[in-house]
């Protein structure tokens, strides 16, 4: 008999098993929601699917009466702009400093311990300092994302550079490459896919900081809307927003992986 660990599900079974937890969760939700709505038809904690669809229609496909805008898209635009800018800047900082730290001992001895300490400061604990330094506008929100994610990327990049085989670096040097050339031709091509991987991993943290920043002070944004309607417990709005955020996060992760696979196929060969 085959051991349990050697049983591979057929493609159909695998698809079913993938969907099963989602279906179960939806089913459990609808039961609980119906039970609560039977007690009180206006209960807001677990709205019915119709109520949720209504809310989606109101927020995504109907002009807001007061502003004449489509709230969900407006919020999405604002949030994506912030997280996109924040994570891009973080990646650039992370790549540059991480590379210098990894390759140049003289930079490393100066910066590495400092960055290690900085990366351990919980950004949420120093919010008042951030407000006073960066104000309360867009800059502060983007900065919170950068402060939360850049140190992690820097440290990751540094360790990735340091893990490159010494032999490669020495060989390049014996062939006459300068530090600059080694960076450009040996190190950079090898850590670019790792940078993408690192960004993918920090996306979760970036979203967390984005939502936190928007909860603190904002006029629009996905996090802003959630915290605003939370005041009157509109779960019919919060659920779609949460699902939408998850979808966006998934799409960002997925596209980064695809970019990496297309640009650096050699990096993904082992995984297949």
């Amino acid at each position, binding site marked *: 008999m085959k051991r349990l660990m050697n049983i591979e599900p057929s493609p159909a079974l695998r698809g079913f098993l993938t969907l099963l*937890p*989602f279906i179960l*969760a939806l089913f*459990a*939700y609808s*039961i*609980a929601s119906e*039970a*609560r709505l039977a*007690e*009180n*038809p*206006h*209960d*807001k*904690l*677990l709205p019915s699917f119709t109520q949720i669809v*209504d*809310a989606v229609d*109101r927020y995504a496909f109907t002009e807001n009466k007061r502003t004449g805008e489509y709230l969900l898209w407006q919020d999405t635009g604002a949030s994506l702009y912030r997280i996109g800018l924040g994570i891009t800047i973080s990646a650039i900082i992370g790549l540059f400093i991480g590379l210098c730290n990894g390759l140049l001992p003289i930079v490393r001895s100066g910066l590495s311990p400092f960055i290690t300490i900085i990366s351990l400061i919980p950004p949420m604990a120093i*919010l*008042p300092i951030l*407000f*006073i330094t*960066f*104000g*309360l*506008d867009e800059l*502060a929100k983007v900065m919170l994302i950068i402060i939360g994610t850049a140190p992690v990327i820097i440290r990751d990049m540094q360790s990735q550079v340091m893990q490159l085989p010494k032999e490669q670096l020495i060989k390049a040097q014996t062939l006459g490459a300068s530090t600059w050339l080694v960076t450009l031709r040996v190190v950079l091509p090898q850590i670019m896919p790792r940078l993408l991987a690192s960004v993918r991993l920090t996306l979760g943290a970036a979203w967390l900081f984005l939502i936190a920043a928007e*909860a*603190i*002070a*904002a*006029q629009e944004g996905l996090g*802003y809307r959630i*915290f*605003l309607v*939370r*005041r*009157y*417990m509109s779960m019919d709005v919060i659920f779609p927003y*949460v*699902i939408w955020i*998850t979808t966006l996060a998934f799409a960002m992760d997925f596209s980064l992986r695809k970019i990496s696979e297309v640009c650096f196929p050699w990096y993904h060969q082992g995984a297949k």
Partner: protein
Amino acid sequence: MNKLKLLLVLAALFTSQQSFAAETKDKFSVCWSIYVGWMPWDYGDSSGIIKKWADKYDIEIDVVQFNDYIESINQYTAGQFDACTMTNMDALTIPAASFVDSTALIVGDYSNGNDGIVLKDKKTLKDIKGQQVNLVELSVSHYFLARALESVGMTERDIKVVNTSDADIVAAYSSKDVTAVVTWNPALSEITPQPSATEVYDSSKTPGEILDLMVANTETLKANPNFGKALVGAWYEIMEKMQVDSKIRTEMAVASGTDLAGYDAQLATTKMFYTPKDAVTFTADKQLAKTMEYVAKFSFKHGLLGESAPDFGFIGIETPAGIVGDKNNVQLRFDTSYMQMALDGKL
């Protein structure tokens, strides 16, 4: 996401038995959050006064402190608590608008300067025109701002509101982008002493509009009048004691993170109803119905009564002087009967 949902569902399933249940029971839970007018609940819990009154009526009352005010109301609305402290506006827009029939069991105080509008480097309320105003959107502060603007012939169109978390509003004021804030104590008293700050309007100019209540689930209360009696009895015993004993007030001060002087300063801008007589007189007055109408209109205008609400009277509010809004859909009741019992010494 799924896990979160599943957890929510499980939590809801788990609690759905007890929510909205109107049967008689002998275990109750009450939640409160830190605010000058609600600190007596903390003292009542720690000193055993609430337990004493609960024992008298042969019931048990569990008192739970929340650090997050809105979360406490949401939990009450979801049916996790039998009673909760909240303002009159939030009582209308959160539980009542969710059709959780709620009764203002105790009208504890009104803000009499505890809420204020502060401008940076400007001297009068009219200067607020065109500015960005940082406040907790859709909260009592927002309502209060709308009332203040009305008093100088402006509307919300003349300003721009920026939603700002109450915990961060003091730090926010220090940032150069922020030129106007609306907030309440203790944050207010941290902002006003700063040299750039002028408090251009405060709630003593619209007295009796921002009420701090102990709100109980109407069905639970109807089925268990002893629960109401015990809470009201305990409350007025605490009121009587705290007025004369600075030691008690010191305890409340420390529990709210300040000292006696700081707490007394907040009390000075809060009109406490120390006696049931004051509370009953205030609640029975015609003015309360008028106030609730303002609140309902504001809430309706901002969509807080639900998307299905056709007008401000969609949710009926019962006051001793009459019903505001739909008589067939009363979800918020100001009930003086329990406070009257305290007044008559019948508890």
